[in-house]
């Protein structure tokens, strides 16, 4: 044996304890390979060019932001050292700027340092007028982003912003590398295919290969700031197929370790999970399946004026008594059980979370009360005068056109609701419209949810992040869609109340969290008691992972893969 090999042998012996430690699945790459399936495939890895959930979540393995939201909706510092607040001086007293400090030692996966210049560039990239940036709303109100020193970035707002955690927070507005995207500003953004398909990031993984709408191969970032993580060395992120097949590949064949968005028949999913190969995980955010009751008149006889403020109020849905009776007749628990299983909870609020903002004033609606609804209508003189089984309101029969998007769960719900309403003397005509048309927003189409050429419509909406200010401002009088605004506007049910508008303005100027909570609850109750929105189901994200994976803390407030660096394969 030569001297060199002796030395090598000694080194090998010295390595033994380290190797033993490594066995405990606590080093980078020690958990081996992870297979993720998203049945909708990501089409790009640049979340600024496509706002879809699939793109945002897949790119969250690579791109990161200053702070992320954990499974409880709490902000955790990510690239930043800490969360800036007014108390620690991170947010200016007049609420017009927020100063972030980048944690020490953060580098891009190519080894270069993360600097304030990257944040400034990201802001320029997304706010470029020709870029068509899908996440532009995260930079709303930002007037400038500036470097204070090598590790400090200040975001300045044009006016007092009580909740400044928008730009560079969460998975939708991560930081891009200025060096890589420098040539991709504005109209040139789509020319940078290589950068869009393989962004350099600070995250736990780097892209080895990206095939749009098909598959992503990733491996652990060698320059990741936590030397022991990610525990998985490589990841395959496959797209395609459908939700049932994705569930099957995790729970039955075991080919995949994690499947996303399993909105399938709850009994089928429960049956698959019962085999013991997988665990179903649910995270609740702010999505609420709800009915919107048109407050304007959708009568086709009005022509261009239908469903506009100019066309006049709805003949009976503006009366809260009618809305209340419709709401009381609905068995939310049954709708949830049939359509959503573990992925839903009955709710009586359009703003169901975070906890601080959730009102408890409307919880009576959780129990179906058909006799109560009948009594309520009778007591208010809304009775069936001509004996055809349908009540009249000032001589107008309670017949409604009830529309939603085409989707098996929604059509089941429609049929059930129609039946309950028939029991209280309200006749519903059902209609469903292809989702791409219904949500398409084409001002020329009569079938969009914004045009609302119907009496009642059902869909799900939510808000990104944890702050409801912008969401609650959806129902301002000025946000009613109409022909003058190309039918844009978020006040879909055409609710209008000066007191409500005043509350929205008050919230925009209030920084105290408890006070904001009170205002949000009050606004929620005001909408609920107007019965212009009838909430049905608080919907959560449903995913499944192989029983052998540990460390998953699914969050609906951020990318559900937000903490993938902590995932590991159990022994």
């Amino acid at each position, binding site marked *: 044996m030569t001297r060199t090999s002796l030395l090598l042998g000694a080194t090998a012996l010295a390595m033994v304890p380290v190797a033993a430690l490594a066995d405990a699945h606590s080093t980078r790459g020690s958990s081996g390979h992870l297979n993720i399936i998203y049945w909708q495939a990501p*089409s*790009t890895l640049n979340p600024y060019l496509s706002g879809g959930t699939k793109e945002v979540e897949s790119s969250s393995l690579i791109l990161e932001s200053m702070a992320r939201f954990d499974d409880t909706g709490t902000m955790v510092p990510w690239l930043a050292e800490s969360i800036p607040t007014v108390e620690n001086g991170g947010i200016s007293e007049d609420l017009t700027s927020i100063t972030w400090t980048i944690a020490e030692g953060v580098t891009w996966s190519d080894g270069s340092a993360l600097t304030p210049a990257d944040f400034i560039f990201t802001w320029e990239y997304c706010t470029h007028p*020709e870029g068509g940036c899908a996440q532009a709303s995260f930079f709303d109100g930002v007037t400038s982003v500036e470097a204070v020193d090598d590790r400090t970035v200040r975001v300045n707002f044009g006016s007092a912003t009580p909740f400044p955690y928008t730009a560079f927070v969460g998975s939708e507005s991560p930081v891009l590398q200025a060096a890589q995207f420098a040539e991709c500003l504005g109209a040139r953004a789509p020319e940078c295919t290589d950068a869009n398909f393989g962004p350099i990031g600070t995250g736990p993984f780097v892209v080895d290969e990206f*095939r749009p709408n098909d598959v992503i191969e990733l491996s652990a970032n060698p320059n990741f700031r936590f030397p022991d993580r990610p525990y998985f060395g490589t990841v395959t992120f*496959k797209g395609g197929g459908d939700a049932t097949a994705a569930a*099957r590949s995790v729970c039955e*064949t075991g080919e995949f370790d994690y499947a996303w968005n399993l909105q399938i028949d709850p009994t089928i999913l429960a049956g698959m999970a019962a085999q013991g190969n997988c665990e179903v995980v649910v995270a609740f955010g702010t999505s609420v399946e709800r009915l919107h009751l048109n407050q304007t008149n959708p009568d086709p006889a009005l022509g261009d004026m239908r469903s506009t403020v100019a066309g006049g109020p709805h003949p009976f849905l503006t009366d809260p008594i009618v809305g209340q009776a419709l709401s009381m007749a609905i068995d939310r628990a049954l709708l949830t059980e049939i359509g959503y299983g573990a992925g839903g909870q009955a709710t009586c609020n359009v703003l169901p979370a975070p906890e601080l903002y959730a009102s408890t004033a409307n919880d009576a609606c959780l129990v179906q009360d058909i006799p109560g609804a009948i009594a309520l209508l009778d007591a208010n003189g809304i009775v069936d005068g001509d004996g055809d089984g349908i009540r009249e309101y000032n001589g107008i029969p309670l017949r409604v056109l009830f529309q939603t998007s085409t989707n098996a769960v929604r059509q089941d719900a429609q049929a059930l609701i129609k039946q309950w309403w028939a029991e209280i003397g309200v006749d519903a005509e059902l209609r469903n419209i292809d989702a*791409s048309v219904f949500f398409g927003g*084409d001002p020329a189409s009569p079938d969009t949810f914004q045009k609302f050429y119907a009496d009642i419509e059902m869909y799900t909406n939510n808000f990104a992040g944890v702050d409801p200010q912008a969401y609650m401002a959806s129902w301002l009088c000025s946000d009613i869609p109409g022909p003058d605004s190309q039918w844009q506007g978020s006040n879909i049910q055409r609710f209008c109340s000066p007191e409500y508008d005043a509350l929205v303005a008050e919230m925009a100027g209030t920084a105290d969290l408890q006070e904001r909570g009170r205002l949000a609850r009050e606004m929620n109750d005001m909408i609920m008691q107007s019965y212009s929105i009838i909430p049905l189901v608080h919907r959560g994200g449903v995913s499944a992972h192989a029983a052998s994976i540990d460390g998953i803390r699914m969050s609906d407030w951020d990318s559900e893969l937000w903490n993938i660096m902590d995932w590991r394969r159990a022994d």
Partner: protein
Amino acid sequence: MLTYTIRRLILAIPTLLFISFIIFLIVKLSPSDPTAGLPLTIPPEVREQIRQSLGVNDPILIQYFKWLKLMMWDEPLHLIEGWTGWNVAPEGGARIISYQTRSPVMELIVQRMPQTLWVVGTSYIVGILIALPLGIISAYKQYSIFDQVGTFVSMVGFSVPTFFTGVLFIVIFAVNLGWFPSVYNTTHVVTDWDSFIVQLKQIIMPVMVLGLYNASQISRYMRASMLDNLNQDYVRTARAKGLNEKVVVLVHVLRNSMIPVVTVIALNIPAVFGGAIITEQVFKVNGIGQLLIIAIQGGDVPVVQTVSFIFAVLIVLFNLLADVLYGVLDPRIRYD
């Protein structure tokens, strides 16, 4: 024959222009919106900016001519550059860009082609290999047990949809028996025997599902064509000359019966390139068919337009090829 071919090729140009315009109008005038699939949390102003940056709001005719120019001039140049390495394409020039991926559509198509050819192409060959003997024997032994069973199987194969047989195969062979994967790995590269076996395992289910369907169709043509010929006078003559049965059936009858079958096979080849939308979706093959369906769902006009146009070109070309083959196989047919 040559002048005929040239005449047909020249006639194909206005046909294709017309087809491309109609496809464009159908896709463009349908109520689809590239931002429809985005979460509702993205506000309308941002959506409008996205549409603006995609050029969705340009006048329809301008959009069409832009596409036509790129399709007829720039894209072929890029293709030539890709194949030969000659520097002919305009540097940093415009390409047909997908709304969804913001990358050149042609690169998407090139990326999707291998798995589509592997799966759909193999299934077509398998289908033909099953169909020809099946059709020949069924016709030769008409109304025998073999014929009855063959007819039954091909009727089943023809009428049961692939989304049913596909899922059935997955449940039996992937879930219960665990023999084959239910998800196709498009990044798998065949380098040696072992990786070939892996490839074989992952294509076998989609190939059998599609192969069954193709075989049912072609075997019916083969059987009918054989039956037509078996009763002809020349067959009786051949037998009377004392030729043995094998020569009569496999040389005389088969050659004549193949004429219509070959054209049917040729006419169906474009469908191979078109992929199999449903089967690709079921087995997550992510080929051309899946590209097309995702583009339709996402309102991705450039992809739908380009893929459909390439189909149209292939269909026109293979129609011509079938006509020419007809002339080659049957000396009685002359076009000049």
